[in-house]
């Protein structure tokens, strides 16, 4: 099974003008998805301050380009496997904002009617096969979905998102080797935002690039990209998906990024060195992409229309969620087993 290749770091293609490989409609969508994530997450944060978001929640503010780039490159039949920091990836697949906010607010209109909570967003109809809150657990699960695709001769790809800190847990290693040995159509996406919870990833990792520097341990190409550039993400996704669909096996992609907020709602992120956040905010993916659109000839008014539309969607969703009831009490005991119930005895 072992194989060797000449490896070189992948770099994003230089932008090649309005008629480049990405094209106008896709760019519009990439921007829109990023704005949806940004606005919905910022709203989630506001709702938390109003004590309307219960439990915990983990925002992707600053990391939007990754969820957007992959989702836009995916086909509807492709599958997403997310983490507790999965609002972004869920929204990016087209799940209605109100369903996501409803779940964060633990209302009956939520994606899982409040039974799963913010860490477990799932929308099978949109290909979001769950968000997993135990670090590393979903990497092997994504392998299994990919095994099914391979077995059935289906050409869908399983895309698995996780953080830099996740590369140090055992399941990461097992999944990568397993996927490589069986050449599974799975794409592992490491969002390196420089921190696990509150600890800088460099303090607990033996290599500089927690994912990319491990790729060769599984016979995979070393790939590091700018995770704040949605075009770069979109392109690397396309390449990886094509590989997967062609039966060439898994990819491991490290996307460099930064989260603008704390790890979770409880975290003021005081552990950051002075100036770090500010520096990264200059590389805000949405700012970058807005400039890109202008550069590619989009009208300011067209861009503003996208933004206004998203804001309206978020307003509407918020209103709907605020008006929504708490979960129906009956669902407490439903869906433990496939018969719809929870009976463990007769």
């Amino acid at each position, binding site marked *: 099974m072992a194989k060797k290749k000449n490896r070189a770091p992948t770099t994003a293609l230089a932008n090649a003008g309005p008629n480049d490989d990405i094209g106008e409609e896709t760019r519009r969508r990439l921007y829109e998805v990023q704005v949806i994530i940004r606005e919905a997450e910022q709203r989630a944060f506001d709702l938390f301050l109003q004590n309307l978001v219960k439990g915990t929640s983990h925002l992707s503010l600053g990391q939007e380009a990754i969820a957007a780039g992959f989702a836009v490159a995916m086909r509807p039949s492709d*599958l997403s496997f997310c983490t507790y920091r999965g609002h972004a990836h869920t929204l990016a697949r087209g799940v209605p904002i109100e369903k996501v906010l409803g779940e964060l607010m633990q209302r009956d209109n939520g*994606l*899982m*009617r409040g*039974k*799963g*909570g913010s860490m*477990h967003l*799932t*929308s*099978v109809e949109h290909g979001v*096969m*769950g968000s*997993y809150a*135990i670090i*590393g*657990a*979903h*990497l*092997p*699960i*994504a*392998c*299994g*979905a*990919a*095994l*099914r*695709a391979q*077995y*059935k001769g289906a050409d869908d790809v*399983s895309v698995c998102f996780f953080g830099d800190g996740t590369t140090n847990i*055992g*399941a990461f290693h*097992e*999944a990568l*080797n*397993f996927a490589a*040995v*069986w050449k599974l159509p799975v794409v592992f996406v490491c969002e390196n935002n420089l921190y696990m919870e509150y600890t800088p990833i460099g303090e607990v990792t033996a290599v500089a690039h927690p994912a990319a520097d491990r790729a060769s341990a599984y016979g995979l190409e070393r790939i590091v990209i700018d995770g704040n550039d949605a075009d770069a993400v979109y392109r690397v996704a396309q390449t990886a998906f094509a590989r997967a669909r062609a039966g060439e096996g898994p990819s491991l992609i490290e996307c460099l990024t930064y989260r603008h907020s704390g790890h979770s709602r409880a975290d003021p992120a005081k552990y950051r060195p002075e100036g770090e956040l500010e520096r990264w905010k200059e590389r805000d993916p949405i700012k970058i992409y807005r400039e890109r659109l202008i550069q590619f000839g989009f009208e300011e008014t067209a861009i503003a229309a996208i933004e206004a539309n998203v804001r309206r969607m978020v307003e509407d969703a918020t209103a709907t969620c605020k008006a929504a009831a708490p979960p129906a009490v009956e*669902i407490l005991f*439903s*869906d*433990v*087993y*496939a*018969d*719809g119930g*929870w*009976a*463990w*005895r*007769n």
Partner: protein
Amino acid sequence: MAELTYRDAVTRAIAQEMSRDPDVIFFGEDVAKPGGVFKTTVGLYEQFGPRRVRDTPISEQAILGAAMGAAMTGLKPIAEIMFSDFFAVCFDYIANEFPKSRYMSNGQLKCPLVVRTANGAGSRFGAQHSQSVENWAMMIPGLKVVAPSTPRDVIGLMAAAVRDPDPVIFFEHKSLYATKGEVPDGEIVDTLGSAKIVRPGKDATILALALMVPRALDAATRLKREHDIDCEVIDVRSLVPLDTRAILGSVARTHRVFTVEENPRLCGWGAEIVSIIADEAFYDLDGPPVRITTPHIPLPAADTLEDLVLPTPDRIVETVRRSLSA
């Protein structure tokens, strides 16, 4: 009708289900070309080919995680964990993933898979390869848990497990692999959640599972012959769903109950069942419900020591006799 070993029944059971349903796949460590370290899967690779029967790396988390991902998206995987003790290296899937995904997703996700494993003592393998860990699965809400004691039940319960839409943990007993039993020809399909009265009796109920079933039967025979105590022996077979109806019904008739379990004492299935009986059938009981278990210690390797710790027919006879005459 044919006589079959429990070991060969495992093979036949898997083959029966793989022949029936092309979505059934099977994988684990050394299960395919080598046919399994307990030789329970010899010939499946040859019969069903490398696409459906696969050898994996030593990666129990990947094995169970992959089984879950495949189950979630349309296959019916059977995954082998070589020894049940190794559940400890992949316990997240058993405790946190398989059993919770349907509930957390409000019914969107499914998880129809079977994890089969070699459970139990008697091979002089020592503390890390001999445990009975049925309770590790029984204690987790959302799983189903079975443990057959005969070749026939191996086939019937495996078929039921594979066809079940929920995650089923299937405990085979190492020390039963070489035992034989009559098995009908043709397809065998049992149902999960039904206990079996394997010996009717009126003086006391003995509840047993897996290797403890033949020992309980042995003890019952001797109790009758030597002490004129007529015990009903129930093979619990399925811990989840649990056939409390059969169990409580028997206690209502015999008024005394004994559990015989191989796992170490604390928080075993015996404790669960005794607690149910003590609560729901308190006034049926003529005397204390008694658990006969392996003592709460790690298992020793040496044959002479190992033979002292598991419940034996002797110990069952003595316990029942003394308790009934107290």
